[in-house]
């Protein structure tokens, strides 16, 4: 087990390096230079050049070939790519270019908001959809199944934007059941995340129910479930004891692999409900080409993702003894 975990962690190294490389290349291809904005709208050409120099944008992209040809090895690696590499791997993220705020501080202050919205939403989504999927699986083939599945399909056919527009306008504004927007930390948060949470659950429910229904039907067709039914065990009991337990594997997968994306939050919901989470932070950073921030977020998310995969695999082994870890 330990050697398996270590091996999986070692596998993560090329992935992380790949993420760094791909993001660096992509961000270098994106047009836009933050120095124009920093310099101000009336700035002269010299000011812009000075700022580029201060930010290190005038350094060579990958390798300082001139320094290399002169044999100055250390100087040759003083390039944008290697600095980016070094900073990220040592978790020495520079400050944001726009707010000058240390990136970690900002992530620490925003991730909770994203999680406060995303975690209940996600748990609610999973719980509700498993519950419905169980009902549907139990009533498979009947009109209840047909109607519920049809509703789910209709639900997932409507774009999320439509849900948000409807919810904010009618439920919050017209009916006044919820605050229109806003966010407070602590217990107060529940008041504000209620509506976005419900909308998130409503829009995601369809696809989750369908997915879980398939998973559960697969399980229900398996021999041991049939045996259990044949033995005369009552249906709900079989459903919970056998079907749900075995359906946990795909459910765990979706759960764990979603965690890094919970961290990034729901862009649309955060924007419309003014929740100061990672989603809007990220979008802002992107729109101002605040590359240190984007890099830090990409790096953190991919780290979380790799860890999530590891946890999933370990969970697999714990839930299903048939899978050996070699």
């Amino acid at each position, binding site marked *: 087990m330990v050697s398996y975990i270590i091996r999986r962690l070692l596998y993560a190294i090329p*992935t992380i390096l790949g993420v760094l490389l791909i993001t660096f290349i992509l961000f270098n291809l994106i*047009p836009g230079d933050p120095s124009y904005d920093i310099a101000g709208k009336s700035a002269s050409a010299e000011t812009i050049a000075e700022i580029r120099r201060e930010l290190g944008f005038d350094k060579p992209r990958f390798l300082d070939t001139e320094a290399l040809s002169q044999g100055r090895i250390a100087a040759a690696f003083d390039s944008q790519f290697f600095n980016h590499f070094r900073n990220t791997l040592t978790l020495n993220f520079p400050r944001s270019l726009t707010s000058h705020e240390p990136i970690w501080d900002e992530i620490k202050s925003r991730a909770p908001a994203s999680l406060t919205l995303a975690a209940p939403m996600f748990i609610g989504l999973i719980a509700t959809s498993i519950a419905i999927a169980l009902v549907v699986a139990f009533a498979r083939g009947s009109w209840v199944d047909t109607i519920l599945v049809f509703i789910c399909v209709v639900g997932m056919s409507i774009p999320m934007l439509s849900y948000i527009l409807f919810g904010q306008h009618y439920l919050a504004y017209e009916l006044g059941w919820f605050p229109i927007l806003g966010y407070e930390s602590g217990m107060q948060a529940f008041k504000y995340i209620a509506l976005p949470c419900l909308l998130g659950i409503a829009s995601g429910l369809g696809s989750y129910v*369908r997915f879980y229904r398939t998973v559960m039907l697969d399980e229900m067709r398996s021999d041991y479930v049939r045996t259990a039914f044949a033995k005369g065990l009552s249906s709900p009991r079989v459903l919970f004891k056998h079907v749900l337990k075995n359906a946990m594997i795909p459910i765990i997968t979706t759960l764990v692999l979603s965690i890094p994306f919970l961290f990034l939050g729901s862009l649309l919901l955060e924007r419309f409900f003014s929740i100061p989470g990672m989603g809007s932070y990220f979008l802002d950073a992107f729109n101002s080409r605040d590359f240190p921030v984007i890099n830090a977020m990409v790096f953190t*998310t*991919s780290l979380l993702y790799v860890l999530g995969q590891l946890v999933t695999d370990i969970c697999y082994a714990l839930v299903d003894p048939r899978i050996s870890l070699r």
Partner: protein
Amino acid sequence: MTEAALTSDIAVGKGRSLWADAWRRLLSRKLVVASLIVIAVFVMVALGVYAGLIARDWSEPVGPRYQRPSLEHGFGTDFLGRSVWRKTLYGAKISLTVAFLASLISICIGLPLGAIAGYFKGWIDELIVWLFTTVNSIPYIILILAFAFVLQGKTLFGYPLRGISVVYLVIGLTSWVGLCRLIRGEVLKHRDRDYVMAARAYGCSRSRIILGHVIPNVAHLVIINFSLRFVSFIHAEVILSFLGLGVKGEPSWGVMIDDARQELYRGCWWQLAAATLAIGLLCLALNIVGDALRDALDPKLRQGLE
């Protein structure tokens, strides 16, 4: 045996492929047939728009601005007095093209990569697995945004990228991982099956085995994946339009919803309704057909049912 006898014998023995089987199964369900008809209608509309037969004059004002739906203007008019009905029809072209080409691109990347990784194993496999793990661990939204900005205004093989081509390229280039992973897993199973062994035994080349034997046997996954993917791509187009990275200069459903989200508060709901309805109807049909396809094509499920 004479030539005539041979032909007649063959004519008698008409075989039913698994595909034909699945097709027959699909057509036996009324709801699926209805959905197929809906999809066909949308495709016809899109083709009609391409041919210039439908909604060619979508950009011309037909009446005053922000007209409610009436007998005269079926779905009302928009901020420039253009017919929302025509825009909805025209949107079928954009949305279907985006979803279709994006699916095509992601299949063109995911299928060969997955098949190669699964069939060859070894370092090629490791490389491809590394590639898709890496891509997968970058948050999707970052990939989408980065690709969109990188592609915008660039030229590809001398063809300038803007508007719709950016949209489908972005969606296609960022969404092949799931399919690639799926195909790789399936090919790994198939590569050691006896029929592949047999092909190798009689000297089939590797490319012929992959193209002629393995891929046809995993193709049903592509088809199932394609139909479900189509839906998510139509939705992706809406999100991209909201982020301002969508189609410009032409009405797509995403653009219409984006327009409508502000118009809603002036009491102008028809553009939102028209686009949501169009998306909802098409996606509903696609989802039903996708489910039915999966039931019909996935041998594992079928065995379970029989």
